[in-house]
């Protein structure tokens, strides 16, 4: 449906389209594409190698399972249209992720429903005729009626084979072309053989017909596929629901006038009016108006938050109460929402290790099945040719690699969607497996266990300068830093010191940040240091420390001595105590690794009941500690949010970044905790473990089923209809078992979920 538009690839190089569809940083652009027509790993590899060969392409990730790809490339070397044209040239239809993506899902779902309905309705009809035919087999029906029932059955089965079963034939053919064995191959062989033999026997008017087996087989297989597809769409739907939130038209304020403009025309610095009930179209800062804002779509937190002038709002949240005027700070692909959607897309373009392993195993399995079918056919042809066909057919039909190729991806997709509902977004494909295996959890104290909004609770002047003056110096220096502590100083300036601070800040001091220790800067040609005691004392080695000053405080000093000490306090997160207990109950050992002073870290650890803690760790120290733990015990989860923590997050076996943390932390983490409620982490661990458990159950079920069924079928004891029931029900069983993960867990944590699918008034 989009093909008419997409023939005109050059249109995609237009500036405005480029800005809304691509994420561009300098010359490097990142785009999400849905590739229609890509169904198998071979197509994916073909696309990957062709696109990688283009000039300036840095990174290509293609997933056949989700039909998605993500490309990062140098837009100066290859234009966007060139990229799209290359993919189209291979015979695929690239669609830029957006509205079209959802339509692709919808179309796939409608077609699947139709196929399922045809197979289901035909199956019930064929069953009634089959009953008459079985009665005829025991005698007591005129031959002309028997022939009639056979012809009618054939007629009804034709649309099932030539319409409903098309996906299996397609899959098998693509697999053959790519020289890869998939579960579609034995399925297609079985359908084709059974149908051909039935037609042959119908026309020559003797022998068995298998119309009932064929229709039933196709119906139940399609049912399994349908459930699998629903689960896959649910998982993809999270990011689409996020992306779909954005309004298309916004009210821009120019002077006194309010004019409606397209959201893509917005630029940073514009002033936008958001009426009550409308969605906030961009990140920004409120200029006028106070309202309640519902950010549940992003965070799962359902209580609306009060926001007033000076506070920031994020794109995608809903303005509930009163009109707001805000100044746009980020639009399009630079908003928080886009960043998160991009991370989710990344997770979907990666194939989890588990799925890859299951696919390989399934290919081996299918190879053995085909070999077994050949052997069975050979044996029976020699032993009893009359039964050779039905025994071979039974072997082909009865074997079921579905626990491998169908149920494992379904379980992972279902768990991903369920975690997103809890407020824990999976941004790396392997994160669920790693989370389930986590045995050790390292917290970064600041902002993770605490609220991350430290306040200066006490300040004492130590030198001859007044405390106001010390505040002014400290705030002027800290203003230049991005450390979470900096805001505490800026907020703490007493009114009497504000004028002085402004004067000092106006000189735009240059500061040098020493990570994990403090910062140093020159103000009015005097050198100051602010930070840990020993760091400040390097500037004034002789200075005495008064007993009254807590060594955990933050000191300010210059060459002549210490000037002041500030005590900084940070409240615990409400959820921290419960979360720590819940994680402990799951058998996970906890540790705090913080850059703060031992006195502070120790106090937090004691209040939470965590025995293991390390303080005064530099970011490098944290990294070393995580690496050491990973080597020694494995399964280390890191929960952090800091600007400095990105390398630590990447070093852990699974890492969770707080939703309020920096974008860099988000990008380095495997999961993002949007709800900011630590209790969700324990819930997530439980769900991840249940996912692995269900995958294991499915594999055991499949192993047991195949071990029993295949020998029986080879011996000729399983008629084709029983084989069809066995195989197709087995595949439905494993998929439904995986689908159990989508059900809300026993916890009443299901408060946020519906919000992601809720319609938002435009």
């Amino acid at each position: 449906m989009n093909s008419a538009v997409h023939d005109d690839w050059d249109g995609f190089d237009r500036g405005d389209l480029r800005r809304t569809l691509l994420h561009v940083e300098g010359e490097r652009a990142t785009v999400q594409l849905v590739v229609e027509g890509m169904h198998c790993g071979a197509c994916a590899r073909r696309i990957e190698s062709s696109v990688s060969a283009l000039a300036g392409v840095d990174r290509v990730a293609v997933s056949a399972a989700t039909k998605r790809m993500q490309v990062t490339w140098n837009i100066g070397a290859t234009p966007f249209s060139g990229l799209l044209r290359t993919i189209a040239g291979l015979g695929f239809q690239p669609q830029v992720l957006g509205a079209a993506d959802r339509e692709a899902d919808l179309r796939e779902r409608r077609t699947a429903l139709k196929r399922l309905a045809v197979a289901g309705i035909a199956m019930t009809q064929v069953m009634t005729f089959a009953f008459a035919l079985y009665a005829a087999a025991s005698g007591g029906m005129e031959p002309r009626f028997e022939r009639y029932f056979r012809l009618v059955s054939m007629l009804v089965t034709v649309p099932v084979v030539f319409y409903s079963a098309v996906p299996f034939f397609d899959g098998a053919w693509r697999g053959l072309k790519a020289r890869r064995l998939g579960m579609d191959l034995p399925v297609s062989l079985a359908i084709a053989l059974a149908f051909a033999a039935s037609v042959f026997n119908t026309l020559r008017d003797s022998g068995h017909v298998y119309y009932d087996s064929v229709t039933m087989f196709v119906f139940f297989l399609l049912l399994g596929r349908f459930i699998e597809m629903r689960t896959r769409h649910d998982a993809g739907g999270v990011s689409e629901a996020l992306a779909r939130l954005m309004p298309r038209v916004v009210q821009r304020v120019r002077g006194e006038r309010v004019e409606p403009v397209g959201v893509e025309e917005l630029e940073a610095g514009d002033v936008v009016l958001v009426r009550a009930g409308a969605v906030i179209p961009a990140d920004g800062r409120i200029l006028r108006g106070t309202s309640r804002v519902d950010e549940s779509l992003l965070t799962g937190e359902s209580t609306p938050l009060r926001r007033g002038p000076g506070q920031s709002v994020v794109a995608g949240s809903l303005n509930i109460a009163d009109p707001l005027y805000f100044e746009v700070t980020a639009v399009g692909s630079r908003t928080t929402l886009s960043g998160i959607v991009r991370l989710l897309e990344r997770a979907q373009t990666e194939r989890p290790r588990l799925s890859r392993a299951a696919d390989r195993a399934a290919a081996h399995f299918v190879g053995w099945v085909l070999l077994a079918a050949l052997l069975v056919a050979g044996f029976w042809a020699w032993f009893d040719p009359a039964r050779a066909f039905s025994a071979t057919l039974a072997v082909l039909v009865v074997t079921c690699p579905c626990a491998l190729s169908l149920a494992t991806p379904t379980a992972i997709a279902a768990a991903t969607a369920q975690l997103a509902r809890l407020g824990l977004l999976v941004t790396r494909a392997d994160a669920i497996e790693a989370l389930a295996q986590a045995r050790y959890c390292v917290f970064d104290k600041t902002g993770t266990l605490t609220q991350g909004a430290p306040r200066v609770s006490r300040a004492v002047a130590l030198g001859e300068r007044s405390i106001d003056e010390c505040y002014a110096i400290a705030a002027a220096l800290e203003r230049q830093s991005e450390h979470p502590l900096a805001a505490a100083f800026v907020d703490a300036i007493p009114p009497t010191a504000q004028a002085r601070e402004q004067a000092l800040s106006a000189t735009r001091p240059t500061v040098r940040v020493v990570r994990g220790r403090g910062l140093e800067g020159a103000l009015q040609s005097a050198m100051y240091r602010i930070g840990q005691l020993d760091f400040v004392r390097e500037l004034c080695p002789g200075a005495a420390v008064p007993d009254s000053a807590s060594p955990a405080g933050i000191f300010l000093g210059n060459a002549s001595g210490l000037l002041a000490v500030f005590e900084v306090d940070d409240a615990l997160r409400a959820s921290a105590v419960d979360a720590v207990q819940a994680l402990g109950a799951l058998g996970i050992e906890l540790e705090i690794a913080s850059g703060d002073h031992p006195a502070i870290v120790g106090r937090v650890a004691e209040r939470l009941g965590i025995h293991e803690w390390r303080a005064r760790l530099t970011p490098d120290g944290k990294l070393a500690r995580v690496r050491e733990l990973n080597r020694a015990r494995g399964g280390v989860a890191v929960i952090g949010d800091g600007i400095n923590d990105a390398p630590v997050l990447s070093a852990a076996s699974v890492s969770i970044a707080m939703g309020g943390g920096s974008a860099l932390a988000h990008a380095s983490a495997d999961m993002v905790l949007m709800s900011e409620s630590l209790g969700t982490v324990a819930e997530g661990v439980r769900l991840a473990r249940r996912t692995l458990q269900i995958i294991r159950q499915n594999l055991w079920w499949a192993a047991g089923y195949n071990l029993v069924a295949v020998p029986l079928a080879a011996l000729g004891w399983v008629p084709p209809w029983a084989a069809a029931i066995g195989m197709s029900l087995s595949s439905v069983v494993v998929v439904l078992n995986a689908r159990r993960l989508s059900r809300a867990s026993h916890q009443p944590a299901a408060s946020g979920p519906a919000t992601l699918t809720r319609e938002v008034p435009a």
Partner: protein
Amino acid sequence: MSIIFVLIPLGLALMGVAVWAFFWAAGNGQFDDLDTPANSVLSDDDPPPKG
């Protein structure tokens, strides 16, 4: 018994009608969203305009 030569084609015709009706409903988007419309009566707001 010869009546089945009439009844079964009739049954098949009905089946054809059922399939046609289902195809129409699926193509018309009746099955696209099975959850939201059920909740819409609980919402105070008017439903958003289509498109």
